[in-house]
């Protein structure tokens, strides 16, 4: 879940914005001019995938697939997630402008970190590492995003401690679902388009 505008304190907003800007700069440097259509299409796919809701009894969560996004895009996860949040902000009014930095970093930071590590593991160990990598990337990304979101709320003021803890815990079931969907999606891509998960198809069969 992302945090609404007007809740977090100034220093947290500024810190998130600076971290997000760093990631964005790194991600944009990685994108060559010829990569732009692909990045945009992938962004559009993930934005579309977020329309899929998984109902979990009393509440439903939409798919995020930040782990898969990180595996496919690495550092470029920053611009793509930023654009996703911007579109959500402009079109649907979730989140907002001042929290954009915090929300971007909370989601894209773990995605890029797990994605880069996962890609390195796939390149080194080949496809037999794929189940572990996809489960870890899919679930871990969400868990870390949850921790970061709870921290940004908790550090904004002592009074948010209880809400922050609950917000962090709410990420647990989502992480489990994301881990499984990422696992299955990686299995699918391995069968259908194995080249997608390595930048130059360098994943060993």
């Amino acid at each position: 879940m992302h945090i609404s505008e007007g809740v977090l304190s100034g220093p947290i907003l500024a810190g998130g914005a600076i971290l997000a800007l760093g990631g964005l700069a790194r991600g944009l440097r990685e994108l060559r001019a010829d990569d732009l259509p692909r990045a945009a299409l992938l962004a559009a796919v993930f934005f579309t995938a977020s329309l899929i809701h998984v109902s979990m009894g009393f509440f439903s969560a939409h798919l995020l697939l930040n782990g898969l996004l990180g595996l496919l895009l690495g550092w470029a996860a920053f611009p793509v997630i930023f654009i996703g949040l911007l579109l959500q902000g402009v079109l649907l009014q979730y989140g907002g402008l001042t929290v954009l930095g915090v929300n971007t970093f909370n989601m894209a930071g773990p995605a890029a970190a797990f994605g880069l590590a996962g890609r390195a593991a796939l390149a080194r160990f080949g496809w037999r590492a794929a189940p572990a990598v996809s489960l870890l990337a899919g679930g871990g990304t969400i868990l870390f995003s949850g921790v970061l979101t709870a921290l940004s709320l908790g550090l904004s003021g002592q009074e948010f401690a209880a809400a922050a803890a609950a917000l962090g815990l709410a990420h647990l079931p989502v992480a489990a679902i994301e881990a499984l969907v990422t696992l299955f999606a990686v299995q699918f891509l391995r069968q259908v388009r194995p080249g997608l998960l390595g930048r130059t198809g360098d994943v060993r069969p």
Partner: protein
Amino acid sequence: MTCDLNPGRSVLHRLDPRLKLLAVTAWSLLAALSRTGPAALFALAGALAFAGLGRLAPGPTAKRLSAVNFFLVFIWLFLPFSVPGEPGPALGGLSATKPGLELALLLTVKVNAAALGALAFFGTSSVTQLAAAARRLGAPEKLTAVFLLTLRYFHVLSLEYARLRQALKVRAFRPGLNLHTLRTYANLVGILLVRGVDRAERVHAAMLCRGYTGRFWFHDHFRFTGLDWLGAVLLAILLSGGAALNAF
């Protein structure tokens, strides 16, 4: 496809999108950083005035605002009870504290002020215009280009998604909380990814055919008119008023 949220011809529609971007940023900061009740109410009143000036359609605007308030439900569930202070009204055995209730109320006003301000300014320009304006104000070219392409292809892919959902339905797919559902969703995403990447190659080829050399051109003919100067001055006065309220 320009993606107007709220098409029309009001005063706000005629303002330069560059000014609107700056206005949203400034008003969001003012609302987000207000610490006192009067300052937050001032930000909300201003946002309401902007919404009126922009002739926002009340129905869709209320719907968009209710999405914003979803996060606030969460805040209201916790804050009144977790802030220490003088006890206020008791609710079913739990007693809310006065400072807790005040803080939750303050946050509610702030969140809605920022969101309504953004809706008033963003809603009265097309998204493509706003992107071009952001580019003119110094947003990176690659980022703006990816943003515009994403907006375009999200529409294409959501149609594709709707078609795939229908195909699933025809094959008697009933979603639930089980592995079959998750695997089906994963395959659905996988197919979207594969088709998306294939489409990206065709798009790239088409761009190359039309002379793409890495520059992305934006269609913008912005003019900062007298009306924009008036708006800028008015905004500056309102902003300093809000900042002054925050200081006391």
